């Protein structure tokens, strides 16, 4: 009885009488049943949808917005892309242009992009977890999900998933790709493209087979220790070698180098009588179009096609430099440097000028004892270990295969596979940019060298690397936009050899092959007159007054000039232009006068072109003072009708000109024969 009483009291203490207990249990059951609907009712997305409805109620266009609004969970489902996106459940106003003034999320309309949301969804570009319906799960990485939202600064990486080539409107991605391909990354890391090909590097590091002809061991040592100390613009990264390692590698490279005939013949060093001869030859040869030199203010002035020459006198041996200036192709058959036909005096003048470009402090501290066989052997081992042959040709050492991890899918590497530095946010972009900043910090014994990228460059490279991801590799090929395949065009015959020797393609593009510093010459044969082209090759003068980079004078022989002229005029002909369809002169004066008026009034060509150097000042297009003796009439006519049809990407606007206006303008322009050429002829 006593125990009963005790039980009863415990029971009673907990639940009271059985009737009351039944009531309590029922209430508990009801409450537990209510949890699910309550969670649904209080869910975040309902909260946002209510907020949205409240917001639009006060706006002028409330009725339209209300009509567009659909409540409940919204979903974009794109099976072929693997997209299940519920983002528009909370981001209700994505398509509402009228909400442009709304600054609070999640109600801002999406900014204008070239794609439709319904066709691509959200996570294709923004990453994140599209199927989630809470803020936390959709945007951040949680225990169950791994894919956080991509920070805005890397958003262009998403364009790169489908667009494999250069893309207008995505400068960050383009820059990142340019850096990846141009700074040696692809020599060690393989990147396979979705179409089965491999991404090709655009840089061509020099061969080291004859390095001892070119430079001293001391310079190699200093360069290995810190390439940027020699040239701020150097693209060679810093391998952080110890003094002993740099000593041994320099010893090996010198010992391994073979001598090239011709590199060691010294010319008599006739001192140039005129101290301005060197600088003026450097200027007249337009060396600065490709090579930069640091000026007194520390700024680099000049192009970046060739290496910086600020301290070139500390680097090269005089005999090698003279041989190089005489004909660079003897040392490096692939070089982008043209073969100037300098005479002996010019070679001496120019080499003396360049050798004077030294920094007296540069090699002062480098003193190397003669190398021992052990040091050379150790140097060779280091050269193999650090994969130097991935970039440089070195006699007796093969280019290593798969030297560094493949990067084809780096943009979707799983977080648990990554090692993070202390204090670093645990996201893939932070890992990639951290690695680019300081590659050796992530473990001991790593070999990746340290680059001296700026922060914007690191952001750009990270953007390009994030585009190399699983989605990019698994997209249906029909959705990808392949890069324009690289043209393998090579000119043929003797003229072809000459063009190769003069490195025309370092600056000019023909049939999709070549640089973009100078005009595209694909249709040059339809464009210019023979006499003008011959004069120009003999003595190139600039056509565009505002240009700093100009065509250099190569000192070509008459035979070479005729060879090139014949080839250009015969081969580089546009099928759309019949050169003989319009005469070079003899147009009726009425038509010429009509053309003059159109030139100066309706079309106001003087805004960009100089026709009369006394009155016109336009700096943008080529000078037209002698256009009548430079261009063919048929070319001028076709150009006026559609400039982009002849040179895609030309900035001259298409004026949608009538045939009659184009004929009159052509007639007028063809009367502009200039005076310079006539005098030259008479001489």
């Amino acid at each position, binding site marked *: 009885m006593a125990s009963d009483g005790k039980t009863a009291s415990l029971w009673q203490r907990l639940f*009271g009488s059985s009737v*009351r207990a039944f*009531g*309590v249990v029922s*209430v*508990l059951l009801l*409450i537990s049943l209510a*949890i699910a609907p*309550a*969670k649904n009712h*209080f869910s975040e997305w309902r909260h946002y949808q209510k907020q949205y409805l409240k917001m639009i109620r006060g706006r002028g*266009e409330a009725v339209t917005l209300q009509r567009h609004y659909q409540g409940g969970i919204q979903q974009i489902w794109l099976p072929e892309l693997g997209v299940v996106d519920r983002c528009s459940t909370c981001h209700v106003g*994505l*398509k509402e*242009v*009228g909400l*442009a*003034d709304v*600054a609070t999320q999640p109600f*801002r*309309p*999406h*900014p*204008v*992009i*070239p794609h*439709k*949301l319904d066709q691509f969804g959200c996570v294709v570009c923004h990453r994140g977890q599209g199927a989630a319906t*809470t*803020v*936390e799960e959709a945007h951040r990485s949680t225990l169950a999900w791994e894919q956080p939202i991509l*920070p*805005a*600064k*890397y*958003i262009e990486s998403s364009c790169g998933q489908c667009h494999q080539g250069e893309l*207008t*409107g995505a*400068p*960050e991605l383009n820059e990142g790709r340019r850096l990846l391909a141009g700074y040696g990354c692809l020599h060690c890391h393989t990147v396979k493209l979705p179409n089965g090909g491999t991404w090709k590097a655009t840089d061509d590091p020099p061969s080291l087979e004859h390095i001892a002809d070119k430079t001293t061991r001391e310079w190699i040592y200093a360069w290995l220790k810190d390439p940027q100390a020699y040239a701020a613009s150097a693209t060679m990264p810093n391998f952080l070698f110890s003094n002993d390692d740099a000593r041994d590698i320099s010893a090996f490279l010198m010992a391994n180098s073979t001598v090239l005939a011709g590199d060691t013949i010294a010319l008599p060093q006739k001192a140039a009588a005129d101290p301005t001869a060197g600088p003026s030859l450097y200027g007249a040869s337009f060396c600065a179009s490709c090579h930069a030199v640091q000026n007194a203010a520390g700024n680099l*002035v000049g192009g970046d096609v060739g290496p910086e020459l600020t301290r070139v006198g500390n680097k090269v041996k005089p005999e090698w430099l003279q041989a190089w200036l005489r004909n660079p192709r003897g040392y490096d058959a692939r070089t982008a440097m043209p073969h100037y036909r300098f005479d002996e005096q010019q070679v001496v003048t120019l080499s003396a000028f360049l050798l004077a470009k030294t920094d007296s402090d540069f090699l002062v501290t480098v003193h190397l004892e003669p190398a021992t066989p052990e040091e050379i052997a150790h140097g060779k081992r280091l050269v193999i270990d650090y994969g130097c042959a991935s970039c440089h040709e070195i006699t007796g050492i093969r280019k290593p295969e798969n030297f560094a991890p493949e990067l084809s899918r780096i943009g979707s590497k799983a977080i648990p596979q990554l090692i993070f530095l202390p204090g670093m946010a645990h996201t893939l972009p932070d890992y990639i940019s951290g690695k680019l900043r300081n590659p050796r910090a992530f473990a001991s014994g790593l070999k990746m060298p340290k680059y001296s990228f700026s922060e*914007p460059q690191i*952001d750009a490279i990270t953007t390009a690397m994030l585009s190399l991801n699983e989605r990019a590799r698994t997209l249906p090929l029909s959705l990808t936009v392949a890069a324009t395949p690289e043209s393998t065009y090579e000119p043929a015959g003797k003229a072809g050899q000459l063009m190769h020797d003069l490195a025309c393609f370092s600056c000019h593009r023909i049939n999709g092959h070549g640089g973009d510093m100078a005009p595209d010459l694909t249709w040059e044969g339809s464009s210019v007159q023979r006499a003008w082209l011959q004069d120009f090759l003999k003595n190139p003068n600039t056509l565009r007054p*505002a240009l*700093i980079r100009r065509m250099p004078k190569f000192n070509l022989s008459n035979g070479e000039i005729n060879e090139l002229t014949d080839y250009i005029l015969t081969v580089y002909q546009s099928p759309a232009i019949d050169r003989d369809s319009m005469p070079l002169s003899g147009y009726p004066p009425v038509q010429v006068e009509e053309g003059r008026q159109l030139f100066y*009034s309706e*079309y*106001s060509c*003087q*805004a960009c072109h100089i026709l009369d150097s006394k009155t016109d*000042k*336009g*700096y*943008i297009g080529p000078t037209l003072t002698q256009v009548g003796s430079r261009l063919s009439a048929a070319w001028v006519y076709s150009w006026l009708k559609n400039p*982009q049809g002849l040179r895609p990407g030309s*900035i001259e*606007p*298409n*004026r*949608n000109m009538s045939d009659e206006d184009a004929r009159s303008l052509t007639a007028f322009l063809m009367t502009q024969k200039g005076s310079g050429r006539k005098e030259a002829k008479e001489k």
Partner: protein
Amino acid sequence: MTQRWFARELALAAMTSALLLGIGCARPASTVPAPKATALASALVESSGSKQIAAAGMVLPQPVVVQANDDQGNGVQGALVEMSGPAGVTFDPVNGLTDSSGQFTTSVSLGGMAGRYQIVARTRNKAQKPIEIELQEIALGYQETLGSQLNDKYCERCHNPESTAVRVSNYDNLEVKPHPFTDGNTLNQMSDADLTAIISHGGPALNKSPLMPPYGYTLSKTEIQALIAYIRAVSDPLYKSPGLVYAKNVEARL
């Protein structure tokens, strides 16, 4: 007694649901400890870095530099400058002491949305009152970035009076001077339709100089819209959209 039990159950349920709701809203708050000021300033001025243009989410090309001055207008070393801005804007560093010339330099990354960002630099004067200056920066979205690329290629050589080493301006050569795109006082008066007309059909379309050629046969409609978006984005003072204009055939943008 019953009521008491009910109350406890209800409280529990309420707490549970509050907890469930709370998880989604929790945000970790982080603040960077500020160094202690060794001096106080009486004025804060901008040295450089406002009105820069960068893509949304990116670091501005140049750092922002502000200077703390004393009553005579000389730089004050050791004044504490703190930066703040709208959500998404980050500063590196977010605060610090001014250097020997009174300047504080910070690198700014803008938020992920295109538009104007107002950032604030703050220091304290001798009365411990905060002194603030506001600086505006411009973030470009996709459309404005595309417009800025087109501007570089087609427009800037005439419309930007500044010459650089690689791009000599044609501005001075023109008899009728074009308006720089930052000239909001003029360009904000022109509607999108006006701008479209002058870009597509040239100056004469609005009774202006024929030195401005038509680009309607060179640029696509999308490109012209992008260019206008860029012009609006960089305009100073800020361009205020007239709001949605209802017209026939207004296409939804997405």
